[in-house]
């Protein structure tokens, strides 16, 4: 069986590829060039730097597998970066890692791999694929601090059929130890953080360079009073507290958060933490990992990559999913992805379009 190993140059994908080689697969290493070369701030951190490409190549050397670099920068620009910027422009809070898995790693790369005679793509994601009674199931990783099932929950059945995650049953520390034992120099390479195409982690600055200044009002969610102005309201996310630049303190001195925005997006509602609380989350465009859940199914839902699972009852009506939370949640932003779990198993995902108390 032949597999494409997506080698980022990091420790996880390296060990994942090594394990696939050990398991007897015929493995070909691929490094994805996602940032346009010579085009600004992809910089020295994040992923897909020349240094990462070199690290990936050296891993392939050590494993004795062929290695190629595939340039997917045009696809990445269109499906991940432009989508990211446009989503913020529309007042949404996107997750580019989810988009990358959905459109790049397990779409463009997987499709090409299958067409070229490979059976699938192996990555260093921390998640488990389990052959269940009803087919392939996606489960949380053993290492809960590293679990990445959330950013993979958008994969549909054919995508999951071509995915291989050899690290789901291993703790990160053990992966590092294994890399060192295998003589891979990337064993102690730091984890990547944040958004790879925003290496300085300044999302607002990045968005302002793309979308320009667009002054809008910050409005008290209760009184409707204008409290101040903000030069880039599109960059504000529900639940955000910092960077509002409000100089007038609230009457009771309570901290104020972004609560939501009005239709045109230029008036952003701010208010106290209590106003953030929601018990009902509405999602659209569900992708079920296996059979769609029965009405009233009891699940745990997660609304951000490293968020806590929240107990909920699921209501499904065609393309709409409603999660009724047992306990209120805070900071639920349109555009985020709602992922439902049954124990460790991913039930499915949907894009959040609204929430209410």
């Amino acid at each position, binding site marked *: 069986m032949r597999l494409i190993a997506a080698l980022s140059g990091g420790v996880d994908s390296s060990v994942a590829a090594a394990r696939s080689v050990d398991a007897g697969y015929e493995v070909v290493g691929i490094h994805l*060039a996602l940032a346009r070369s010579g085009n600004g701030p992809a910089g020295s951190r994040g992923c897909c730097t020349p240094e990462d490409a070199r690290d990936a190549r050296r891993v392939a050397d050590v494993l004795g597998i062929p290695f190629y670099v595939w340039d997917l920068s045009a696809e990445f620009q269109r499906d991940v970066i432009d989508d990211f910027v446009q989503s913020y422009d529309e007042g949404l809070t996107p997750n580019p890692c989810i988009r990358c898995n959905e459109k790049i790693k397990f779409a463009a790369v997987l499709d090409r791999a299958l*067409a070229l005679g490979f059976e699938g793509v192996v990555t260093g994601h921390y998640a488990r694929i389990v052959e269940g009674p009803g087919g392939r199931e996606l489960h949380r990783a053993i290492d809960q601090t590293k679990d990445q099932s959330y950013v993979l929950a958008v994969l549909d059945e054919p995508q999951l059929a071509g995915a291989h995650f050899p690290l789901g049953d291993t703790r990160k520390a053990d992966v590092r130890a294994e890399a060192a034992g295998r003589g891979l120099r990337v064993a102690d390479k730091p984890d990547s953080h944040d958004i790879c195409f925003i290496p300085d982690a300044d999302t607002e600055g990045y968005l302002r360079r793309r979308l320009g200044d667009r002054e809008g009002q910050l409005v008290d969610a209760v009184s409707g009073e204008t409290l101040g102005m903000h030069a880039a309201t599109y960059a504000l996310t529900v639940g955000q507290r910092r960077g509002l630049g409000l100089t007038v303190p609230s009457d009771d001195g309570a901290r104020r958060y972004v609560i939501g925005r009005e239709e045109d997006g230029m008036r952003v509602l701010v208010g106290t933490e209590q106003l953030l609380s929601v018990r009902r989350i509405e999602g659209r465009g569900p992708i079920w990992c296996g059979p769609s859940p029965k009405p009233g199914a009891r699940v745990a839902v997660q609304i951000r990559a490293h968020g806590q699972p929240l107990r909920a009852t699921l209501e499904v009506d065609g393309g709409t999913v409603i999660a009724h939370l047992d306990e209120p949640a805070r900071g639920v932003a349109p555009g985020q992805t709602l992922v439902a779990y049954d124990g460790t198993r991913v039930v499915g995902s949907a894009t959040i379009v609204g929430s209410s108390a």
Partner: protein
Amino acid sequence: MTQPRTYVDHAASTPMLPSAADAWQRASRHVGNPSSLHGSGRAARRIVEESRESIADDLGMRPSEVIFTAGGTEADNLAIKGLAWAAPDRPRIVCSPIEHRAVLDPVEWLGEQGRPITWLGVDAVGRVSVDDVIAHLDVDVALCTVMWANNEVGTIQPIAEIAAACADAGVPFHTDAVQALGQLPVDAGRRGITSLALSGHKIGAPVGVGVLVLDRDARVVPVLHGGGQERDVRSGTVDAASSAAMAVAVRHAVTEHQAHAERIAGLRDALAAGIVGRVPGAVLNSTAEVSLPGHVHASFPGCEGDALLMLLDASGVECSTGSACTSGVPEPSHVLLAMGVDPALARGSLRFSLGRTSTPDDVERILDVLPRAVERASRAGSPTFRTVS
């Protein structure tokens, strides 16, 4: 990798000649900077100068006209920039559109610095027209540059005629002969050739050594400034061991090229005929009439060259999509585009370059695995992204 490898990428790099490797090893055992005045220095200098004389003899030049460089790219850069900088009152550069990046990029860079560039045209096989060159040799031209033979499709240029035209017009002429030497008679002393670039690892010498043949009367401004070791136009300690290996390889190239060319042309013809016969839709971009004897360049409609390369690599066949230096730029070959090849077709191209170690078995093996690779690559669809080095 236990399977046999069929290496048909000699235009990228060809194996070192055992005799060149021996010469390198012998010379590398001794200490000595060729510029040092003591005995060890003199011994090193002697190796360099004997190598220089040997190369000069083989190319019909004077020893002072042989300048050692660190490779073909440096030789091209020194000629292009050096000749242009030496003629500030004649700003224009006349250049063919199918040059190697080592020529194209310096020319384009000089264009960015404000130099006017005249791009010559090529016909459907990639040949420059002598009349076109003559028409553009105006009084403001600092240099004209046309490669002896193209590295991708192998097209041989009418160098004697172009050089003569440049001589008549009083325009310095540079030619990149990196691919030509060893496969064709290369008469560097021909009237009108001001400078000529050679690369070691294309003829069986090591990587990292090249030669710029530079007419004794030519004036060039250095690119590298330093000790001025090579005729005051190239600085840096001369690599005595590599110069010795280069001399052996040049000698081999000029004495063996005819027999070599006849032998690999036979393999080339078999490969070209086999590709057309066994792969439906394949289009040859190289022709026996005007191409180097070892080059077969073909396009495969509906395929992506990079997918083909990967599939062939997995089957033990090592070839190229064009120039090994093309990287990071998701564009079809500039050579094929200049020849008028459709961009989509250009992306689905492969170069097989035969060389000294190539055998009839290699040809058979390529023809065995290529049809299946093309079939699979065409199922993988039209090119949307490409492999970069």
